[in-house]
């Protein structure tokens, strides 16, 4: 069966010849019609549409967007803020940047609809420091939108007003974690907050109720208002509605962005057909399906169990290639859809070196607030770097796993999982390579210059 075709709703116009990121072009393509329509409706109705749509967050956790909006404390009398998470830092993920660069007004329209629905008067786009171009594009687009009456004190003559501010980060992955982001936005070190009590929906930015949503999520909100929640829910698969952008990188013929209905394409179809399969003479070895913190899958392993389809429990017996790319199936086989970053490794990859690379990243990015993550991430980095560049010991694999086991589930924020899942899964899936590593190193060429 050939792979299903892409279904581009976020990328509807992106990459079309002649489609530019200015307001005029956006308006020519029917832009801001959904906002125009939204402001004539009751805010509760809009929230209802989003609930009906079944939209799940595209930032990593896949949390239902309507439920998140429902949790917002609307009785406190304090202002409600919207924070747009454009920190896109998870290795392997590059969709939000593309949206911002190519179609910023789509995001702005999604933001304004969300603000109107939630009675938000101030929205912040927190964009990572490494996206200066994106920040410039957003500033320009917001200015255009303000001039056009889509943003600002009196939106489309309704009397409803809302401002959007762009805030640039200073280059730290942890600023993507929503409470770290909020601290950073307040001008502090981005130390994630303890939850309880600091749930953003109640005690978020400046201790006010705050909605944090990913860039892509908010673009979907615009689409939901356009076609209605029920119609949107028919796209994708039950509980995994809509489309999602998959960012494929690594050892495939055609890496890039692909937008599919959630769950309609399998990993095998995506990699072999859509992305053209492995590089010449190579075979797939491993794939990380949802950003570098998602658990790795090893080609050749099988996943068996029962899953719910409709009201029935049916058996499944999948190879890596058979797994549908949706939140639930990826979770079922012990990994996650995460941020949509699919990282492919072929048989040229030294799996220990790959883990050392990932560990290096997380050790560098741990905020350092809580003990297990702070110390464990650097320890794992030191062990795996030593294995690659110095002397590997047969017991190092077991030690690595034990260190990772002391982190996950014991930290302030989900970075603890993000930094330990790679090690845990690499060891679970490729434990043999770690064991054999000292011997294989002896046969290998002279060591490379050590990592800093």
């Amino acid at each position: 069966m050939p792979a299903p075709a892409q279904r581009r709703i976020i990328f509807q116009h992106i990459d079309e010849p002649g489609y530019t990121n200015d307001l005029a072009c956006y308006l020519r393509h029917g832009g801001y019609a959904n906002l125009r329509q939204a402001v004539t409706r009751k805010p509760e109705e809009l929230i209802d549409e989003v609930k009906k749509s079944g939209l799940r967050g595209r930032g990593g956790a896949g949390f239902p967007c309507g439920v998140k909006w429902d949790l917002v404390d609307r009785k406190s009398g304090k202002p409600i803020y919207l924070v747009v998470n454009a920190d896109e830092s998870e290795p392997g993920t590059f969709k939000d940047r593309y949206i911002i660069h190519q179609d910023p007004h789509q995001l702005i329209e999604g933001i304004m609809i969300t603000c109107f629905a939630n009675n938000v008067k101030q929205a912040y786009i927190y964009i990572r420091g490494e996206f200066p171009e994106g920040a410039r594009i957003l500033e320009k687009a917001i200015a255009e939108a303000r001039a056009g009456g889509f943003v600002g004190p009196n939106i489309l003559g309704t009397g409803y007003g809302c401002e959007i501010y762009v805030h640039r980060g200073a280059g730290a992955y942890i600023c993507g974690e929503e409470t770290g982001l909020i601290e950073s936005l307040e001008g502090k070190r981005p130390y994630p907050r303890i939850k309880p009590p600091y749930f953003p929906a109640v005690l978020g930015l400046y201790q006010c109720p705050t909605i944090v949503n990913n860039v892509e999520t908010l673009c979907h909100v615009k689409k939901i208002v356009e076609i209605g929640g029920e119609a949107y829910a028919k796209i994708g698969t039950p509980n995994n509605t809509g489309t999602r952008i998959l960012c494929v990188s690594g050892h495939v013929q055609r890496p890039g962005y692909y937008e599919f209905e959630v769950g309609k394409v399998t990993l095998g179809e995506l990699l072999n057909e859509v992305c053209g399969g492995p590089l010449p003479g190579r075979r797939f070895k491993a794939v990380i399906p949802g950003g570098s913190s998602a658990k790795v899958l090893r080609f050749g392993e099988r996943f068996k169990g029962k899953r719910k389809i409709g009201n029935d429990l049916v058996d499944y017996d999948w190879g890596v290639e058979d797994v549908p790319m949706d939140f639930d199936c990826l979770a079922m086989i012990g990994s996650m859809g995460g941020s949509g970053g699919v990282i492919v490794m072929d048989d040229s990859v030294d799996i220990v070196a790959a883990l050392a690379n990932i560990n290096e990243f997380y050790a560098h990015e741990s905020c350092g607030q809580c003990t297990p993550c702070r110390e464990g991430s650097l320890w794992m980095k030191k062990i795996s770097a030593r294995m690659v560049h110095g002397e590997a010991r047969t017991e190092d694999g077991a030690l690595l796993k034990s260190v990772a086991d002391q982190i996950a589930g014991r930290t302030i924020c989900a970075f603890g999982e993000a930094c330990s899942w790679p090690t845990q899964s690499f060891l679970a899936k490729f434990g043999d390579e770690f064991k054999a590593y000292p011997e294989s190193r002896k046969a290998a060429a002279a060591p490379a210059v050590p990592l800093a």
Partner: protein
Amino acid sequence: MTSPAKTELVTVNIDGKEIAVPKGTNVIEAARLVGVDVPHYCYHPKLSVVGNCRMCLVEMGMPAVDPATKAPVMDPATGCQKINWIPRPQIGCATNASPGLHIRTQTPQIRDCREGVMEFLLINHPLDCPICDQAGECKLQEQSTGYGRGYSRFVEQKNVKPKRTQLGPRVTLDDERCILCSRCIRFSKEIAKDDVLGFIDRGSYSTLTCYPGRKLENNYSLNTVDICPVGALTSTDFRFKMRVWFLKQTNSLDTESSVGANTVVWSREGVIYRITPRRNDAVNDTWMADSGRLLYKAVRAESRLTAKDSLAALLARAETILRLSPGLAAVVGSGQSSVEEQFLTRQLAHALNAPAYLVSRTAEGDGILVSADRNPNVRGALVTGLVSDLPQPYLDDLGEAIDRGDVRTVVSVGEDLMAAGLSATQLAKISVIQLGTQVCASSVAASVVIPTLTVFEKAGTMINQQFRLQRFAKAVAGPVGAFDDLEVLARLIAAAGGPAEPSDLAGVWTRLAAEIPALRGLSYAAVPETGVVLDASPWASLPFVEGESLHHRPALVAASA
């Protein structure tokens, strides 16, 4: 007076032990009440909760209820309500008591959590306990013994960080020992209101530092040393001086102002090495000012007064002077004396039929733990009846009396008469019998000098700005040639022809309990460690100089608010 708001009590279960605690009490404090230790580093009862060390992880559960009917779900095995345990461990410091909360601290998972955190804290730690001042009172040492694995699996290079940074005039930092708990940062920001500390860099390379161009030099900087759970922050004064396990601890008071912060004096073989705060939630919480920690330097100061003559010889000279000009004496008492000394000073004035004065000591208060009244015990002088009004800024009335020739002899109980406002000419006109511990202008001018003891060398009580009667105990013996204040005063009274007065604490307290209405029924031994608040109503209308501070709102302010 308003009665304190009733706090709702809730019953929680910790390791199988039920206890009722005020709603919102956190698990660490609740566990303490049932004798269960929940080890922790970053939590401090007087600072905000950040939950960063992860040492206090516990298992948490709530009684199960049927989601539909809300009826309790029973466990057939035990016959009790079933408990739904959360699989993920929770931090005790940020978990607050709610009805039915169940906590387990002794499970394999929690043991593993603690071992993990201990191992993580130690891998980059220099393990230089043999040369570390904190050894013996280090939470890292204690908890690695109690909860660690006892061996290391770490074969990598340890991180290298700055070893001896002078954060300010009194605090030295060893960043390699720092476990990044942020207590010192929170203290500086929340209590000292001097937000100068912070971390730079990130991850395991995070480094505590002072804001560029600033110093940790506020008058509370040494509290960071007290609350640092490890040997990262050390007192520059105490550094490398003494092993803490050799030191004897004596409860005392900070006598630098009327706040009366509770303290501990640490000494060995008659030598004091440091002073630290002692927790009193109604007075100073767990803090004290740096300035109060240096007071012990008076004990061995160059200017310390001692006598070569015996006390009997000194008293004989004093008696001669007192006899020379009967009816023309005055007594200058002190707000730095203890309640007991002030009572005897009053009795001395009675015996001499002389007026009693008190020396005022005021300066700006800092709003925290140093009040505007730099006498620790003006209220003692009021309560004992030594004086009936607040002291004048200077001893002008006494000066005029001297100038008129109404006063020829002055007994000064520890006060420098010159500093208190008498001129050299006035001093030259009188004979001074000077009691005290330090050389001063009036001891130089005095006819008789009777050296006495510092607060560290004797016991007694003082009454702070809240009218709280608090005890201090004797930490070290006084030097040869200095005499106990009570004995000196009792014998002076006798020399002045007064009745026999007791010269020991217990004896004076028998007199106080009988004579002084506010102290009726009390005894020295009966005063609790945290003090006892006296009825202040007889003095309610006096314009006390203190402003607002940590646990004190002046009565007049409180009334007008």
